[in-house]
């Protein structure tokens, strides 16, 4: 299974500036592992020490937040899109 993963602008410098990448995997967890293996700089920003997605970063499969699906175990179908959306707070002073 190959899906489109959208990289938010704060993480793009860690993914060679790309705004989206194609990655393989059958679940959200597999895709995120492939992402951080391909772009190791993203790991610390995206995941905590236990490998869980940080609580200020939301992962969406298409329009749905995985916290309200099966979390990182959420299964992925062909053609799905995965978005990484971090909280941002700038107003900006």
């Amino acid at each position: 299974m190959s899906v489109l993963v959208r990289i938010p602008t704060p993480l793009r410098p860690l993914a060679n500036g790309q705004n989206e990448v194609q990655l393989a995997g059958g679940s959200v967890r597999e895709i995120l592992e492939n992402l951080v293996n391909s772009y190791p700089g993203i790991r610390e920003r995206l995941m905590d020490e236990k490998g869980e997605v940080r609580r200020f970063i939301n992962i969406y499969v298409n329009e749905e937040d995985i916290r309200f699906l099966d979390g990182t175990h959420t299964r992925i179908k062909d053609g799905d899109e995965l978005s990484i959306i971090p909280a941002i707070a700038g107003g900006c002073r």
Partner: protein
Amino acid sequence: MDFREDQIERYSRHIILKEVGGAGQRKLLESRVLIIGAGGLGSPVALYLAAAGVGTIGIVDMDNVDLSNLQRQILHSTKTVGKPKVFSAFETLTAMNPDVHVVPVSEKLTAENVMDLFRDYDVIVDGSDNFGTRYVVNDAAFFLKKPLVSGSILRFEGQVAVLEGYKDTPCYRCLYPEAPPPGLVPSCSEAGVLGVLGGTIGTLQAVEVIKLLLGMGEVLNDRLLIYDALAMTFRKVRVPKDPNCPLCGAHPSIHSVSGSTDWACSI
């Protein structure tokens, strides 16, 4: 309240919209909106709400205008550098529309004063620059049952959501349960922001405020809008109310406003 001649002329483009009309314009003139932050977002929000004739606009900001603000904070100008932002905002908004009663609040927003600051307003607009403030603003708006129009910008990206956790719709804690710990991610001044983004996101916030005040259209209260300036995309994702939300969920653990508004701006 009867319109003066000059008001009929000033607001004529609103009054001829049947969705607004004379009644809607009168409503705007009687409305009270509080804006947190007179910065990149607060500037366009305040300018458009003042132009629209929102009768009372409160602005909370304790900072002075800095030269580095002027790349995006269009309430201020070279001649107000060094002056309090709320003073600069007062001058700009009053010059643009003397109908508007501008309430400058140059004190720091804290968990202690936030309830008193919010109480007399109809809608709260968050254009603050740090996570601590965002949670404090969210919690106070929830307890007082005030709609919160939240916007944020960083680098080339912006987000907008209307948060009404006292209804069947989410609050900020449903959307983002936790703030990033300080120091993990680059600060706002390090990361930079394309100045125009404040205009894009701030004007969307201003539209949502007017829709809330007039009760028209579909309010963005179950979605997060994400604007990516580089890819030129606007996308919406669904934001459900979190049944386990510590503030607005079924079994809340937060019963009053607390927390620091000092946290560093992150990610």
